[in-house]
């Protein structure tokens, strides 16, 4: 008897589902009348959205001065929130593109969901660069538009790279998401009974028939998009990190930033997907599709990226010491021991310590615990951006200009407000669009695979895993 035991891959979809039942399970959410709970959730979301608009309005009226910024610290919560939201967005693209290229079929349960999150997160992120400037009404000058000054933007500026990166990222994510939606919109079109839905879904389904000649090009397009989105998602956070890395402030001017930011992005993104997924699947009873196996896989990714981030933190310290640059050494010591040490240690605990618990299978398969950690991780990642942005500026080269930064109420309200935007969009999505990629999940059902059918009778027989018997080792 061998000491090896073969554990077959768990089924991607639990329960005894066929095509029709899956369609029903997913699309009924959109076609059945709106549940009261949805309105209850929409209420606070809209309230927060209103708060966001108010605080932006007041900002435009009074000026950046309503924020806590000061002379050394020119960037505060606005930039922190920007980086944080963008980071969160990345998980979506990662799940839909990179896992697709790696043929990770389990992604089908969550990719639609994650992509939606990406788009809304990037929207929230996009708010900040636009409003954090002193003259908001002139923000469009960052685009190369002919103007009365006959001036063009400065292509040496990382901030301008950012403009292109983030807008490209948003556009491509949107297209990717929409392409994925088309067949499912067609499904909704065909299942819809009332005129409005028929028309609306029909319009956006573009007349999709499910023709396999169309599927043929469609799959090609989807693959190419995945191939494009993968380097794109990596480039976006790389370029975001350039905002800091290309500058010359100690603690910012470091080459480790791109990989470290990307890892951090995936880290926080997965945590956010987790938070949302665990809630949504409970509310909409989709445990069969978004199974605990998915949760476990994602927890492992969180643990891995968390460790990468932790490694980056330590590497920063090492390089600061190794480089021998006094300002570099000073800033990292100040982070850990200076006026912002509290923030630094919160970050350390949330990002480095907390995900390590997922080494234990018991914990990474525990729903409640996972939910808790997913939130801790996002808090931690916010503090990471805080530590990077604020500490470096507040204590840079000349001690004479060192100054402590603390936010005002308006900083906080604006940030809280973006959650209003995010959840408003997300609730709309849950209500009106299929939260699971139907076509894709059908393709990975056992019934979806033509090889699971008898060649003669054409009858379905479930796939049986052939367990490979390891050869007995000769003495």
């Amino acid at each position, binding site marked *: 008897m061998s000491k090896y035991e073969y554990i077959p891959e768990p089924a991607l979809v639990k329960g005894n589902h066929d095509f029709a039942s899956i369609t029903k399970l997913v699309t009924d959410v959109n076609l059945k009348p709106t549940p009261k709970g949805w309105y209850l959730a929409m209420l606070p979301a809209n309230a927060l959205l209103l708060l966001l608009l108010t605080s932006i309005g007041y900002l435009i009226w009074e000026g950046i001065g309503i924020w806590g910024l000061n002379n050394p610290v020119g960037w505060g919560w606005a930039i922190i929130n920007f980086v944080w939201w963008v980071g969160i967005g990345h998980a979506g693209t990662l799940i839909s593109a990179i896992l697709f290229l790696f043929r990770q079929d389990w992604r089908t349960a969550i990719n639609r969901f994650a992509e939606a999150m990406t788009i809304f997160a990037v929207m929230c992120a996009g708010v900040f660069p636009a409003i954090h400037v002193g003259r908001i009404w002139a923000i469009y000058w960052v685009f*190369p538009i002919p103007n009365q000054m006959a001036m063009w933007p*400065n292509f040496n500026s990382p901030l301008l790279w950012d403009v292109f990166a983030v807008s490209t990222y948003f556009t491509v994510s949107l297209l990717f998401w929409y392409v994925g939606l088309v067949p499912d919109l067609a499904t909704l079109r065909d299942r819809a009974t009332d005129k409005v839905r028929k028309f609306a879904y029909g319009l956006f389904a573009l007349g999709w028939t499910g023709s396999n000649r169309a599927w043929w*090009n469609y799959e*090609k*397009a989807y693959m190419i998009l995945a191939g494009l989105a993968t*380097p794109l998602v990596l480039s976006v956070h790389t370029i975001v990190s350039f905002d800091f890395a290309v500058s010359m402030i100690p603690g910012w001017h470091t080459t480790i930033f791109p990989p470290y930011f990307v890892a951090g992005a995936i880290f926080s993104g997965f945590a956010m997907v987790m938070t949302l997924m665990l809630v949504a699947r409970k509310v909409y009873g989709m445990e069969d599709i978004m199974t605990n196996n998915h949760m476990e896989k994602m927890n492992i990714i969180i643990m891995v990226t968390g460790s990468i981030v932790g490694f980056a933190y330590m590497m920063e310290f090492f390089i600061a010491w190794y480089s021998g640059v006094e300002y570099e050494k000073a800033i990292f010591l100040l982070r850990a021991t200076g006026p912002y040490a509290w923030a630094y240690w919160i970050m350390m605990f949330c990002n480095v310590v907390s995900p390590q618990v997922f080494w234990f299978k018991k914990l990474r398969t525990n729903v409640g615990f996972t939910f808790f950690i997913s939130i801790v991780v996002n808090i931690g990642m916010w503090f990471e951006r805080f530590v990077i942005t604020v500490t470096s500026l507040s204590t840079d080269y000349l001690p004479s200009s060192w100054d402590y930064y603390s936010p005002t109420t308006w900083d906080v309200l604006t940030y809280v407000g973006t959650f209003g935007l995010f959840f408003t969009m997300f609730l709309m999505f849950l209500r009106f669009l299929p939260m699971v990629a139907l076509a894709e999940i*059908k*393709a990975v059902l056992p019934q979806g695979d033509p090889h699971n059918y008898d060649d003669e009778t*054409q009858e379905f027989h479930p796939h049986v895993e052939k367990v490979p018997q390891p050869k007995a080792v000769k003495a």
Partner: protein
Amino acid sequence: MSTTKSKNLHGLLAEFKNPKALIDVSKKVVEAGYDKFDTYSPYPIHGIDHAMKLPKSKLGWIVLVSGTLGFLGAIWMMYYMSVTDYAINISGKPFFNFPAWVPIIFELTVLLSAFGAVFGMFFLNGLPKLNNPLFEVERFKKATDDGFFVCIEAKDSKFQVDLVRQLFEEAGATHIEEVYE
């Protein structure tokens, strides 16, 4: 079976019970020498492209062209703006500061490629096409749920209703129906 000759025939639509059946029948259809036909399923079926003998997709070329446009366009834009049209001394850096342009070149290349991929795909699939004779068929709604269909179009040179119907019946169609325009 009641067929009104007022409308002219679009083609003959047959439903099959599962993806396997759909693959088998499409093989037969191809053998029988039809070329103006198509199969419909709620998801892309693995291996049906061989069965239908589909040609390689041209999408790759479209993306290549649009991507190249993005790449060259980006370089031209930045060269024109910061070297030709209005050169400004920034931090004593050269006007033609290529390393700094790489990120934007990359982004625009990706952006244009993505446009090529998406709109090229729609173009090749003839989308958007909001009215389609098949939508007249009530049962065809299953095509986006759990139905597997084949439709041979009347335009096909070899098209003869009875022969096609016979072919479908032999292939074990669960349902056959004429589609009118």
